[in-house]
């Protein structure tokens, strides 16, 4: 007979679970409200979600760095807190994008908001653990919710996107399970810190098997982070999802993926005996370059932005590959700046979303749609141009500072060639961002009246876009305090 295990409540340290519990309880609350009274307006649910996320954020900020809990599977370190802040901030910016002036049917279901909160909880679990199994559970919770959210957009393409994402995600999950299994077989543990200890103790004896495990891990995380060659789902899924959700997908799942990648790969990179660094180096360079080159030939702005966000992800993966504290801090800085700019750019597409396909039978946002926008809607054109210039890395707009820090991290760790590759890639990417600017500013407008661009705009959407613009333009003033904040957290968790 098994020994009875006695667990005291203190040792569980349930406080570590509090942020996720807030999101989950909030989601259940939304479902309960729907049970009690039907047909409530979406504005109620949007505001409830924002409030729940707000409480969630408060709880996250209240946590102290460096504690474990819940049978030691939860790990609240600097990375966990930092990435949860980013996830929650992005979610709070995203969810008001539901307040469009056009009616989209997904927002009439309260389930949309419940699923959204479940997804946020899933991502939070993913980043706040170094237990391979809990990471897996978090990943799957979040992904399953996300597939449904995409499909809820209820167009033929959305179903296609959701199914595609689901199939690819399932494959990635399979890879993840295989990788975790190999790690477990090698070390007898699913805790990353123990895996690192055991592997270091026998000096990476089973190199071949370890590398197989690493390859599985890279493949599975590669799917989630859309690294080349596992990126093929990304543009189609972004195209099928609503522009707002696509913007969200380009930011939040990725930061969760980055944190997991950092936890999984960092100790291997620093051990210097395995080839992980070389594999990642190749993956980073290919991801940046190839995605950039494919983005050059896109005809649709949304697909272009999809490829560009793949390229940005590659850029940022380089920071993980470099692996110094400066690089890891730069990663978070880059991603925070990217959050505002990219979400802003996708929100601009969302604003111009039209129910009927007016411009192109296949694409919602072909470049032609934006031609001559400066004459029709000067403010909109300038705002969109600002986002594009920022994404291209033109100073002094936000992403330039992110690029500056990552390139500087590369230079400081003697990766000068990598820094040059990054520079050249930025130059390549400038072309496709400029292409949109050229259409907006230098071509004559197609025959339609100006209202068509702003069909979907409402005060809340304009507010969010305005907020993103301010942060994009004045990022330089925020860089120093942000970097201090980030570095303190990253250092606290020993990365």
């Amino acid at each position: 007979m098994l020994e009875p295990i006695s667990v005291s409540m203190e040792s569980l340290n349930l406080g570590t679970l509090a942020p996720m519990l807030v999101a989950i309880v909030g989601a259940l609350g939304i479902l309960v409200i729907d049970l009690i009274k039907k047909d409530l307006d979406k504005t109620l649910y949007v505001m409830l979600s924002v409030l729940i996320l707000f409480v969630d954020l408060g709880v996250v900020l209240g946590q102290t760095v460096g504690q474990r809990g819940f049978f030691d599977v939860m790990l609240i370190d600097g990375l966990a807190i930092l990435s949860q802040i980013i996830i929650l901030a992005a979610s709070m910016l995203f969810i008001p994008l539901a307040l469009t002036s056009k009616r989209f049917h997904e927002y009439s279901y309260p389930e949309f908001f419940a699923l959204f909160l479940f997804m946020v909880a899933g991502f939070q679990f993913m980043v706040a653990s170094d237990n391979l199994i809990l990471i897996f559970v978090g990943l799957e919770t979040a992904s399953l919710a996300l597939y449904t959210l995409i499909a809820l957009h209820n167009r033929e393409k959305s179903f296609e996107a959701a199914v595609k994402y689901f199939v690819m995600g399932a494959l990635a999950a399979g890879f993840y399970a295989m990788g975790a299994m190999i790690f477990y077989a090698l070390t007898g543990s699913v805790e990353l810190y123990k895996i690192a200890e055991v592997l270091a103790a026998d000096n990476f004896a089973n190199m071949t098997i370890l590398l197989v495990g690493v390859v599985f891990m890279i493949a599975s995380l590669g799917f989630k982070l859309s690294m080349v060659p596992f990126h093929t789902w990304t543009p189609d899924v972004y195209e099928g999802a609503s522009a707002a959700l696509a913007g969200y997908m380009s930011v939040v799942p990725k930061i969760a993926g980055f944190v997991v990648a950092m936890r999984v790969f960092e100790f291997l990179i620093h051990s210097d005996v395995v080839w992980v660094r070389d594999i990642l180096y190749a993956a980073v360079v290919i991801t940046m370059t190839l995605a950039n080159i494919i983005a050059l030939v896109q005809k649709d702005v949304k697909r272009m932005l999809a490829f560009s966000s793949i390229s940005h992800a590659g850029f940022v993966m380089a920071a993980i590959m470099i692996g110094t504290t400066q690089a890891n801090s730069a990663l978070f800085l880059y991603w925070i700046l990217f959050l505002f700019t990219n979400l802003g750019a996708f929100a601009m597409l969302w604003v111009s979303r039209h129910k009927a396909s007016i411009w192109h039978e296949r694409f919602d946002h072909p470049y032609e749609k934006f031609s001559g926008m400066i004459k029709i809607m000067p403010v909109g054109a300038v705002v969109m141009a600002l986002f594009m210039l920022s994404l291209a890395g033109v100073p002094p707009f936000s992403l330039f500072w992110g690029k500056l820090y990552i390139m500087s991290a590369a230079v400081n760790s003697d990766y000068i060639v990598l820094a040059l590759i990054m520079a050249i890639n930025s130059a390549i990417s400038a072309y496709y961002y400029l292409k949109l600017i050229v259409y907006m500013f230098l071509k004559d407008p197609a025959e339609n009246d100006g209202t068509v661009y702003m069909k979907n705009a409402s005060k809340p959407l304009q507010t969010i876009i305005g907020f993103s613009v301010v942060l994009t333009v004045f990022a330089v003033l925020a860089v120093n305090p942000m970097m201090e904040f980030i570095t303190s957290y990253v250092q606290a968790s020993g990365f």
Partner: protein
Amino acid sequence: MDHILSVLVFFPAIAGLLGFVVSKESIRAYGISVAAIEFLLSLWLWFSFDGNYPGMQFVEMLPLIPAFGISYYLGVDGISLFIVVLSTFITLIGLIALSIEKDIKNMIISLLFLEMTMVGVFVSLDAILFYVFWELSLVPMLYIIGAWGGELRIYAAIKFFLYTFAGSLIMLVGMLVMAYLYHQATGVWSFAITEWHRLILPMNYQIWLFIAFFIGLAIKVPMFPFHTWLPYAHGQAPTIGSVILAAVLLKMGTYGLVRLPLPMFPDASVYMIYPVAVLSLIMIIYTAMVAYAQKDMKQVVAYSSISHMGVIVLGTFAMNPEGIAGSVFFMLSHGVVSGALFMLVGVIYDRRHTKLMSEFGGLAKVMPHYATIMGIMVMASVGLPLTMSFVGEFLSLAGFYQISHTMTILAGTSIILGAVYMLSLYKKSFFGEVVHEKNKNLKDLDGKESMALWTLVLITVWLGVYPKPVLEPINTSVESLVSFMHKKAITKEAREVIKPTVIKREAE
């Protein structure tokens, strides 16, 4: 006034923002008044500038990202002072002569933003700040070329943007390496150019960093073989775009050479004199020959402008006070003269909507006033004594004569070749019979055109006859720069080549 530089930088930008409110009918007057105020401010800067002090004046410093050593750090010395005045002056003249009607409001607002970036580049003493303004200047220019240009305008605009952007990203990597080396040496992060000057680097670092900086700057100059964007940009840009591009934007590259790689890497610069000089020579002679083969007046002026930029680079790499001071002075005269030439071509283009020389002939009879100014400016471009270009060209070549006699003589052919293509342009268009019917009733210069052009003529002649008030402050700063480089140089060759004072006067 302590913050005059900040005022100079941000006044046009704020005025540009406010310009959105001004109504379309009055925007031209608004633009001219703003540019006039800015020009007066820059004159004030000149008059309160102490010409005997070689270092940085009116310094402003405000940390932006202290943890990473990036600050808002401004200052002028004799080298940058006059280029700042040139930028504000050319913007004013360009606005006065502006003949565009279409979307004039957008044009004037872009010009004001462009003015901010131009002044910003020349007064920044922080590398990142320099880079910010350097890159930002591309955006309004992209719009000006792309929106008001000729048929291939979009191609030309994108080519212009991508070339410079790619080059400057390489320079950015160089800057990051430089900051890292500075951090290694001192333990502090700093992007201040004046701090970087004090860093003595080993030779192999110097060469690689020199190349990184040189690529970024050379594309802007534009040095052969990176010059191919410029003929397109000039060919397609509207008159005002060409004027600003030739007069000021190209100077960013040559000014950058004097400010960044030369004092930072004196040994590598000396090591690289010959490769750079060969490129400059190719640029001088080859583009001068290409200029002769052009049928389009504007292309002639564009290629002649590239050719003269070669002399400026050559003078800079003479590494002695004559050469560098001469090249800085030549930057100014090139700004005035090529700006005037582009404006003159614009005048005839506005009337006939063609720039082909074969379409003209005998213009001297129809437009005597115009022909006079064109004649003076053609002479100035050729480098006739008593014009501003002569002083600059002479000093640049005299400086380089101490490095290599043959190369200087070869470069001197630029004057002869310049005479060939410029005079043949003048002959084809202005002398002979009036062949085309359309040319018979052309209007001579109107009030605003002659006002703008006569001002330029006056300056060309004044500074050609009496360059002292400008040349002296330049000389003071350049001499201190050269003796600094001499002190800093680590290799023997560099010490020999960089001579603070070359010819000692007997009386001293």
